[in-house]
């Protein structure tokens, strides 16, 4: 039957000619290809030491943002956890006390905010759901680790460092 894509190619096995049967020229030719790669720029990189530049829309590790005064933006509204298809996000809200106004922007804040990086599929829906522009997936690749519990990232790893430090 005729193929629809017209990309099919019929292969035939021809008998080897003299030069091919001589064996050594083919070895020399092969080695020359190998040797030529010694002088070319390598296509791979030594990953943890070297890093490639990420594309602009790369989604890596999450970070919880602060506003221009260094206050945490997250108000623990739970929309990121609701939108999360992998159910990786969990949080506990708390009320801002008197004297904490410089730490949190709204009267409610996330006392505990955890993302399970093993569950996370880095789809970026939390970023889209956030009404306060508090969460962005602008970080690096999540580093590897030995224990499952170490992949549950709390606020200590997620919240951005304050600006004036």
């Amino acid at each position, binding site marked *: 039957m005729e193929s629809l894509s017209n990309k099919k190619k019929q292969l035939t096995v021809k008998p080897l000619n003299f030069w091919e049967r001589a064996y050594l020229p083919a070895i020399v030719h092969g080695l020359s290809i190998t040797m030529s790669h010694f002088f070319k720029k390598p296509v791979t990189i030594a990953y943890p030491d070297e890093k490639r530049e990420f594309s602009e829309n790369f989604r890596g590790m999450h970070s919880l943002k602060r506003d221009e005064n260094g206050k945490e933006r997250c*108000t623990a*509204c*739970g929309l990121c956890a*609701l*939108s999360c298809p992998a159910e990786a996000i969990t949080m506990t809200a708390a009320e801002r006390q008197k004297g904490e106004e410089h730490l949190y922007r*709204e*009267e*409610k804040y996330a006392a505990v905010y955890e993302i399970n990086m093993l569950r996370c599929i880095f789809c970026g829906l939390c970023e889209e759901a956030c009404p306060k522009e508090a969460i962005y997936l602008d970080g690096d690749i999540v580093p590897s680790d030995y224990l499952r519990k170490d992949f549950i990232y709390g606020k200590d790893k997620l919240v951005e460092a304050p600006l004036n430090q």
Partner: protein
Amino acid sequence: MKVTIDGFPIEVEAGTTILNAARLIGGDIVPPAMCYYSKLEGSGGKCRTCLVQVTKGSDKDPRPMPKLIASCRTTVMDGMEVKNITSPEVIEARKGVVEMLLINHPLDCPVCDQAGECHLQDLGYEHGAAKTRYEFDRRTFERIDIGDKIQLHMTRCILCYRCVFVADQITDHRIHGILNRGDHSEISTYIQKAVDNDFSGNVIDVCPVGALTDRTFRFKNRVWFTKPVEAHRECENPKCCGKVTLWYKGEDVIRVTARKDEYGEAEEFICNTCRFDKKKTSDWVIEGPRKVSHKSVISSNHYDTLKPLPVVKQNLVLQEANKEQFERETRL
């Protein structure tokens, strides 16, 4: 009396309001209501979200009414013809009303405990514009604790007066009301006097926005992460029906509210003992999970009982293979 709403005719008794006639028909043609509450006498007529157009006054006087009218306060006439969603004028006016209601609203839904079951949120989502044109400072108030169980955020209030009617009609004596007039009016208790009546907690249920909230539930969890369950108990209070909705998070009851019907109105009022003090599963007789509309945010991201696909329905082998999945009661 015969009245036609958006082309649907219905026979109602004399003295029925247009809104209630529309509710008898049901569906999309029911005008939204923020201040009207069928269980509270005298409520309605304040928020103007239920505006409708009367294209024919009655059989005797077929002239249309000159202006849009509030359907919750207007009684029907024989042969009246009403337009709600079929009238572009009404849709436009309602958009304006929503914008007006939101002028002084802080829009702090991410913080507010009412988010997810807030009528103003639904109304704004369905009828409002995406952006506000208001550029001035919104009015702000300090939040007030009314007793140790109820909290008042006056900034979120839309002055529907429902809570005032609850205090007037459900509780014995009223200590809170509206102070000042017009733009300056605010819900208040004189000298922040505690509302210590047995039925005062019902102001939380009737509040269409997050102005009156449960202090025991404050920032505990978001409504859509909790699981509503219908339950009842024998309440010692003769006026209390004891029929409630329990809102579970895991094994704990974190909130108790009255049961609400499809219009967000409490079916029967409950006492403060049921609402605030009975927060153990052992206090209640569980009736089963509450039916939540699939459009509600409360049911989102919960994986419901599996509905067999048409192909499975026709194939006995597939039916047998998926039997366990279809019989599963709990949500996956």
